[in-house]
């Protein structure tokens, strides 16, 4: 008996970029698999690319492996291969134990059937026996918080409800290896907490877990080791903290190139040298959650020198959602260096971009500004005074000084 739950050796998988050609290759592959059997293929045909190339790793029993990487780096493909949904084109994967997947929960739900009927149906699809489902039925319903709606057809469920029920069924299957793909991003905060709690429980009871996620706070908390994928290639495998740092470094490099700094058309007030760093120094690659940060910039204005201006500093997520805004008024000078020191900003871990602008007081027009003026990332803190708790909601309240003066 082996103490390794998963052994992936040189796993490679190719996909085709062009749809029509993909269909043609599909037909050819199906035919050749019938007459010659499926075989290894390490050669790429026109329009094909490696979605995964030569990925090797082992996961010990009871270990939790994180898989992180940008969109399209091959994380989900890897998970599908581990789950046996896709076969590798080369290499092999040994899965030593009963596998369960939280890849896309609720697949196979029938909208016309009631919640109760769908629990039995979905459980059977996931490989649970009738008696296994029956014995876990109450726990599933309780977990999904679905008692009230058990006899209502699933098509009348809210999407959140559907996912909750699907998740509850999947996570109650009796399994040795659990594959999780980003499902923690669903449902409300309370349900996310429940899921996270359940995964932690499974982990402590010895279940081997492979977790694909963009939520670094979760990866940080849960994963013993982490694999970083970059365009299908293994970039790093090892210590989770190091993996997250690598990932963020890569991400901000990409983000910088795709989110170039843009100066607004109006240039009455011009900004430069926008920078964000940890106030206490040390953290060069990121700011640890809850620690003070310092944001500094220079501006110059000829037309508005001596007049009151409102300065606006927005922190934006890569998705384009403006997360938080700091505003302060100030008698403008011809040119000035400004340093904001923000105490315990409680920004949820992730990558942020800085937008900066100046407006006349009381009017919502810009006199000048920069979008994507700087970027920084916040790392999760798992210990200490300002521990980041997954599933908790954080109110970002800025308490900051401008060149040493407190702003109300």
């Amino acid at each position: 008996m082996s103490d390794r739950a998963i052994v992936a050796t040189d796993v490679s998988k190719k996909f085709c970029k062009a749809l029509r050609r993909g269909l043609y290759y599909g037909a050819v592959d199906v035919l050749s698999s019938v007459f010659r059997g499926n075989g290894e293929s390490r050669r790429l045909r026109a329009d094909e690319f490696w979605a995964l190339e030569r990925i090797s790793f082992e996961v010990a029993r009871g270990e939790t492996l994180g898989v992180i990487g940008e969109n399209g780096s091959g994380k989900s493909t890897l998970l599908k291969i581990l789950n046996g949904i896709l076969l590798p084109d080369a290499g092999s994967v040994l899965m030593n134990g009963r596998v369960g997947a939280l890849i896309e929960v609720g697949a196979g739900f029938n909208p016309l059937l009631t919640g109760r009927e769908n629990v039995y149906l979905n459980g059977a699809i996931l490989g649970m026996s009738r008696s296994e489902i029956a014995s876990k039925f109450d726990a599933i319903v309780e977990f999904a918080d679905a008692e009230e709606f058990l006899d209502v057809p699933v098509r009348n469920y809210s999407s959140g409800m559907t996912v909750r029920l699907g998740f509850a069924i999947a996570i109650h299957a009796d399994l040795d290896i659990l594959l999780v793909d980003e499902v923690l991003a669903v449902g409300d905060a309370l349900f996310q907490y429940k899921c996270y709690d359940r995964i932690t429980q499974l982990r402590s009871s010895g279940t081997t877990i492979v977790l694909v996620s963009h939520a670094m706070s979760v990866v940080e908390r849960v994963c013993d080791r982490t694999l970083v994928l970059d365009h299908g290639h293994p970039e790093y495998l090892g210590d989770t903290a190091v993996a997250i740092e690598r990932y963020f470094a890569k991400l901000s490099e990409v983000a910088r190139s795709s989110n170039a700094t843009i100066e607004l058309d109006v240039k009455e007030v011009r900004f430069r040298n926008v920078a964000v760093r940890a106030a206490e120094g040390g953290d060069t690659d990121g700011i640890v959650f809850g620690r003070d940060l310092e944001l500094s910039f220079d501006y110059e204005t000829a037309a508005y020198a001596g007049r009151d201006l409102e300065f606006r500093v927005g922190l934006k997520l890569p998705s384009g959602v403006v997360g938080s805004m700091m505003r302060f008024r100030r008698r403008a000078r011809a040119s000035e260096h400004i340093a904001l020191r923000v105490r315990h900003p409680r920004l949820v871990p992730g990558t942020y971009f800085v937008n900066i602008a100046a407006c006349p007081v009381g009017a919502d027009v810009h006199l000048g500004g920069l979008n994507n003026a700087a970027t920084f990332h916040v790392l999760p803190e798992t210990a200490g005074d300002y521990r980041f708790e997954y599933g908790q909601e954080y109110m970002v309240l800025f308490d900051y000084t401008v060149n040493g003066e407190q702003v109300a």
Partner: protein
Amino acid sequence: MTAAPTRSTGRAYAADAVTYTPHGPVRASDPTHVPAIWRLARDVWQSRDMIVRLVRRDVQSRYRQFYLGSVWVVLQPAITIAVFLVLTRTGVLNAGQVPVPYPLFALVGITIWQLFATGVTQGTSSLAAAGPLLIKVNVSKAALVVASLGTALVEFAVRLVFIALVYAAYRIHPSAAGLLGFLVALLPLFALTVALALAQAILGVVVRDVATLVPTVLGLLLFLMPVLYATPRNSAFARVNAWNPLYHLVCGPRDLLVSGHLTNVGGFVWSTVAVLTVLALAGRLFHGAQYKIAERA
């Protein structure tokens, strides 16, 4: 919060071990040389709980939206027969000499035919329709195809009851040997249904046109074969149909039920052998191709 996960005790890790290779999944317990159809049969057997659930789902959801519900199961053949009854009574169509009252003769024929036609039609679209399931959950694909035949079987069973009622209404009954022979003689036809469903389910994913083509072809076949009428003896039509295995497989069981004996034993036997060959080939096609189609679904 929730109870700690229950784990069955003493389960051997190694027994569940599977290696996914480009050639397919390899289990430690796998025997090396078994025909593909045998492996598929094992897959299906291991997924029996799921199949039962899926069939239940199909049957429940199919009739839940209809006011007449399951009445449709017998209404469909009844309407077809009514049309033929009108055609024969008015002399537009000559049904030929039949051993039992014509409506009963036609009802038995069309019931058998629909087991085949519904099964093949549903089997063909089974994998394409299961799309999201194929790419999200590791389910036995053969089991999905077999489950899609479930509704056809359930409907067949309901129609058998209908046939029994019609027999009773005419105050006649089939011989016991004929009834038994009828049920046994259905097996080759069902094997053909499974074979075509397996092969066409794969083709249906790769080339979607197949699913549209199948009902059209089946509709055509029904009228070319003496299912709703008796074969005129020694006609050119009868000679052509003697080479049609489907004719033997559909009309063999019907003749056993309505007349108690097989009209063409030789034809039925060679058709059965042909079906078994087709089934083995379809199994090979399905086994080799099933992993490729998750990418195409």
